[in-house]
């Protein structure tokens, strides 16, 4: 048995983390988003008597579901060090598919829309993997193509989604409503997969350093297919929810969700360079985005200042949470 030898004299800069493993170090990234949403809840609840009413909480969870799902998908892509700017377009496509087919296909429209989202994700993954196109640009290209296809399918808002879907999803007005339960399930499942399975660890590892990950036997194609596929499907799921919420399709409705999804993921502690972050943080960040609008409305904040206020809150959050994280290759 060779004897132990000192490799490093005494590590000075580094102390063992509070918790064990990279899992725990990832959990810590959720704290800022948690703090932000807690702050908003306390503030609004204090200033508006209606905030904690059942109907308002139900409304909040209905709004959380679409942004939560799409942000979750985006986060998975970011964990792998990629980025997906096509999620908004995919959401719109899903609303169009729902609007055009749910009347004739009924429930089958849902797997159809999810499948379409999957296909979009696979297209992006193939471009990134086989053609080695930068994910940001490749997903922009996918977004453009998907948008075009959506507008060919459904040039203007319309079509119809059966009211039965609406009743099913948003009908009940109680705290533990279907949207809230669905959000929780989605986030918990993804959090578990990311943190406790080989697949999840491979995604983090790949995001952390793709070259090293490849050398350790990870297939980049598999990672790309999984993350972009998931992101496409989750975006489609978000689109389905949205189409049920507006009872129709809309070829442009998803557009603004792309940046919202990226913002939520980043505010939730996911590193743009990949490898770091946690689904839990993304959940709270998505919640914070939903809360901000609700707060503005309930507290009667002048509409013309809402955008500036949002921008400033965003910058403030960035300054507080993202300081020192600038990318430097």
């Amino acid at each position, binding site marked *: 048995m060779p004897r132990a030898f000192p490799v*490093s004299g005494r*590590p000075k800069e580094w102390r063992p*983390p509070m918790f064990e493993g990279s899992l725990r170090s990832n959990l810590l990234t959720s704290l800022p988003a948690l703090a932000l949403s807690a702050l908003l809840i306390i503030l609004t609840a204090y200033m508006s008597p209606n905030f904690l009413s059942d109907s308002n909480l139900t409304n909040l969870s209905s709004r959380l579901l679409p942004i939560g799902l799409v942000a979750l998908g985006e986060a998975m892509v970011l964990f792998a060090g990629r980025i997906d700017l096509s999620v908004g377009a995919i959401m719109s496509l899903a609303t169009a598919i729902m609007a055009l087919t749910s009347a004739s296909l009924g429930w089958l429209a849902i797997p159809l829309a999810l499948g379409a989202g999957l296909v979009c994700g696979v297209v992006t993954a193939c471009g990134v993997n086989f053609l080695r196109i930068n994910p940001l640009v490749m997903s922009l290209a996918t977004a453009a193509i998907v948008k075009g296809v959506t507008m060919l399918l459904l040039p203007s808002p319309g079509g119809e989604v059966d009211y039965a879907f609406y009743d099913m999803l948003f009908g009940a007005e109680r705290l533990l409503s279907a949207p809230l339960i669905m959000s929780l399930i989605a986030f918990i499942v993804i959090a578990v997969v990311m943190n406790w399975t080989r697949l999840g660890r491979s995604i983090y590892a790949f995001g952390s350093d793709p070259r090293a990950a490849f050398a350790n036997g990870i297939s980049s194609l598999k990672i790309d297919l999984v993350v972009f596929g998931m992101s496409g499907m989750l975006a489609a799921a978000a689109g389905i929810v949205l189409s049920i919420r507006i009872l129709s399709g809309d070829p442009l409705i998803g557009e603004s969700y792309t940046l919202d999804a990226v913002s939520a993921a980043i505010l939730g502690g996911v590193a743009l360079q990949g490898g770091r972050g946690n689904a839990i943080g993304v959940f709270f960040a998505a919640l914070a985005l939903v809360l901000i609008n609700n707060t503005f409305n309930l507290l009667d904040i002048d509409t013309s200042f809402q955008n500036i206020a949002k921008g400033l809150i965003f910058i403030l959050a960035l300054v507080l949470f993202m300081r020192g994280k600038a990318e430097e290759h």
Partner: protein
Amino acid sequence: MASLKPANHSPTLIAVSGLSKSFGRNIVLQDVSFSLGRGEVLALVGENGAGKSTLMNILSGNLSHDAGDIRLKDATYKPSSPADAARNGVAIAHQETAVMPDLTVAENVFFGREPRNALGMIRQRQLHSDFTQLAASLGFDLDGRKLGRHLSAAERQLVEIAGAISAKPDILILDEPTASLSSEAAHSVIRLMEQLKAQGTSIIFISHRMGEIMEAADRVVVLKDGALTLAAARGEFSEDDLIHAMVGRKLENIFPARPARENAPVRFSVRGGTNENLPEIGFAVRRGEVLGIAGLEGQGQKPLADALCGMAPFRSGTIELDGEALKLKSPAAAIAAGIASIPDDRKHDGLALSLPIRLNMSLFAITERAKGGFLPLAYERDFVEGARERFSIRSTDMEQPVGELSGGNQQKVVFARWLAHEPKLLVLYEPTKGVDVQSKSEIYHLVDELSQKGVSVILISSDLMELIGLSDRILALYEGRITGEIARSEFSEEKIMRYAAGLPGKRQAEGMEAAHV
């Protein structure tokens, strides 16, 4: 061409025949054949860019080959990916490149082989306790919970090795496993190799250190320009044979003969230099002197190098250069004062890998000659072409991206950068890490040449041979302090190691400032 006689050896495990590989028009491997038996150690030797890493990357599934045939356990072997190679019992420890920064040490080591429960979920505790066990059995002093991004070069290297070993491969490939290790740690790795060999593992290792090769290798394969120039079994080759096969000629003196220079005036001194990572440091260098700084890994070499080049300045203390007080607040300030430095991590700190050799090399050469903010392009070209020739930098032309060069050639580019204007002080931090003998020798002679012209050199290195061969005087560094000084006449490996291990040196701290001049 020598070929390996399989006769007096254990049964052949892997046989490579006629292997060729090129990148574009660059032929990197040409008709290479050799074989390796079960439980044997094969050393792969060659100059920088000879094709060693490429060959190993082919065996480990990181690259594919163009022509030739590999047979593993009597079956054709053409791995499509590292994962495929692993399934066939081939594991590689890259030269510290494959540690994943956001995973812990333990997760890195067991990556893809984590213990799981019935649901397929990873058992985190088990993982870390498995690791503790493995580390103990290998004799590695590693904290399994530390994140990859916090590791030192030496620790990364050990993680790589531990990971490869834990896969229990039939063939273990170690690409320059000892390059970042102190000599003591390197010895332990060599002992570990012997132990694995005894268990029946076949090992292929790459090294530029002749001592290790002579000590550990059952056979050697020497590559020159991608072709095999020597394949021999233990006892059939000498160090000189290896060098001859690598370089194509005999290397007379790797180290320059240096006259003593004890009376030159002091050029540069630091007194009471401190910062977060350096408790207190003081020393002085004479004009034209090469001052070696020895120490075990992580004793403050990096903070010292960073402080001297202005990246992580001293917070207090006085620095003098040619009698003038100086503040090294930034790299720009250090360079302006005439202090040049060669970082140990050339890929991150030294080079813009995607840019051509020309742009990487010429910045300082042309800076002072720029007129009205514009560049003297003809001068630049001449300078770069001249340097390319002088250092025999292996490249297609001066527009080739530096990232495509082998490690040693990259290092030469970093070196060449400072040639246009002789600095007053040159700080070298592991200047020949992963550099072949030939280039090493060139670099040593260059350092000597500069010092002859009056440039003072601070050489921070973990390579004892290098320190002894090149320095005029050696200081030992321990826990961020200078713990001893050895004059040239008293140089010995043993003495340096004693001081470096923190054992009391000849002179104590009080008299240090005077003593170190």
